[in-house]
């Protein structure tokens, strides 16, 4: 799919072409749904592996109207989103300032880099049991897990963004009277913003991917927990419905951030 925000050289023709590609994408999705429907209808595949689209739809309608295991669908989604949101807010509050400072001050970078580089490639599940040990089995350990997952990409984006600010910009700002904290607040932070939002996109992705793992242990709510719980009862229709819901939410969040990037930094190339 072409980038919807690409600067068109010839507006009319590009619009036309974008529309055409959009139609191709729609047809492609429609075709996949058709194959799915035919495969389940003609029982090419065991319905346990692949329930039919109407089955999934009715499973969706059931959980949407009656909820799942005593909790409404929106509450499940809300529980998951709340965990992600709290984790991401903590990430923004810590990784951004620390990353920017590390990007500007070589000494700080030397102090923190080894730890970040060490834990960054670790799969979050590897240390999850330790987190449960430390923070208990309730929500706190889940949020810490998501936080640690999101911290590394955000931190790295912040370091990178601070390091690539043109030196002339900093010097020019100092000549205009920006010193110390004003320099950070009025020049460095806005300079980093486009890269920070790109980092946020990555962090959201990682956090989202970790969510199901986080909700695997001792949860009674959340969209990820729903998938795992349904799998215990072989309710593949609910699994499919929940996965599709998760996918759509992810697309919406990503589109929202992309939109924000465009609005905040229309001059940057993305």
């Amino acid at each position, binding site marked *: 799919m072409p980038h919807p925000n690409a600067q068109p050289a010839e507006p009319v023709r590009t619009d036309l072409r974008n529309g055409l590609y959009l139609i191709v994408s729609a047809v492609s999705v429609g075709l996949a749904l058709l194959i799915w429907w035919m495969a389940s209808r003609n029982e090419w595949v065991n319905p346990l592996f692949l329930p039919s689209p109407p089955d999934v739809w009715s499973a969706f309608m059931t959980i949407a109207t009656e909820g799942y295991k005593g909790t409404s669908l929106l509450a499940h989604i809300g529980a998951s989103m709340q965990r992600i949101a709290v984790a991401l807010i903590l990430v923004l509050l810590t990784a951004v300032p620390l990353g920017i400072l590390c990007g500007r001050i070589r000494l700080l970078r030397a102090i923190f880099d080894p730890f970040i580089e060490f834990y960054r490639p670790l799969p979050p599940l590897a240390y999850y049991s330790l987190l449960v040990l430390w923070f208990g089995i309730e929500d706190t350990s889940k949020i810490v897990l998501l936080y640690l997952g999101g911290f590394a990409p955000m931190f790295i984006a912040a370091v990178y963004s601070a390091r690539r600010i*043109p030196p*002339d*910009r900093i*010097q*020019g*700002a*100092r*000549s*205009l*009277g*920006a*010193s110390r904290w*004003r320099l950070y607040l*009025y*020049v460095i932070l*806005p*300079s980093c*913003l486009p890269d920070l939002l790109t980092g946020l996109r990555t962090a959201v992705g990682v956090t989202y991917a970790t969510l199901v793992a986080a909700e695997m242990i001792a949860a009674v709510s959340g969209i990820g927990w729903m998938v795992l719980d349904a799998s215990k009862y072989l309710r593949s229709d609910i699994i499919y419905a929940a996965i599709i819901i998760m996918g759509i939410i992810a697309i919406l969040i990503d589109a929202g951030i992309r939109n924000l990037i465009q609005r*905040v*930094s*229309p*001059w*940057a190339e993305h």
Partner: protein
Amino acid sequence: MTATSLSTTTRDEHGARQNEHASSCPGPDTGSAAGIQLTDISLSYRQGSQAVHVLDRIGLSLAPDEFVCLLGPSGCGKSTLLSIIAGYVQPSGGSVRIDGKHHTKPTPQVGVVFQHANLFPWLSVAGNVEFGLRMAGIGRKERRRIASFYIGLVGLEASAARLPHQLSGGMKQRAALARTLATEPRIVLMDEPFSALDALTRESMQLHVRRIWQQTRRCFFLITHDVDEALLLGRRIIVMHPNPGTIVQDIRNPLFQDTDAPSFSILRASKDFADLRQHLVSMIAGSGSNSR
């Protein structure tokens, strides 16, 4: 008791010595006059076992309303000299004084216009021009008033609300000039500000800068490697040679006309212009053959 009084005495002595030093330092050539004084500016660094001398005892005295063009081949240290005056680089020897006071770090007193406009991309033209005023803690209303004056001065009234990426190269550079002027610096440093522009835009920018200088009467210090530019703009022309960077010529430009509308084309066609141009070109070229 004794210890305290002793330490006080030493501190007093030290202070007295510092004052003495400060009053004796300006020397006979600088005095306490208004303007910008560079005294024995040197810069060298070690590269392996060799010492590289970038600048060698540069001395300059600039009047508060001077238009100086610093001319020299690339690598003669002219940009380094600008960085030292701006306070970005500390010299290994010598001092920069503004109205008799030491200048060691960037302040709004010394404005800088860069080769590339270097505007803040997230701020509109007005926001950029207001930036220095905001840093100085000037209120919104007053900021607006001052900014709109300087935006008018560079002829960007119609584009005040635009973001830098929506401007042409010449407009960006004019916005940068307005931003620098808005904080009312004592000296405006310009590092080849028109070299990235096309020939037509460059000429109109040169006229612009000339006119703005006449209206503001601040010290403009413009670095260029373009002899024509120096002759058209400079009231004073300084030529530097490299290895190490030294001032080899410091002349008052006889062609300089302090009129409202200097005609660059008539000036260019004159014989004096051609002669002086030839002289300066050979001076610069000479530096190249001498050094290598």
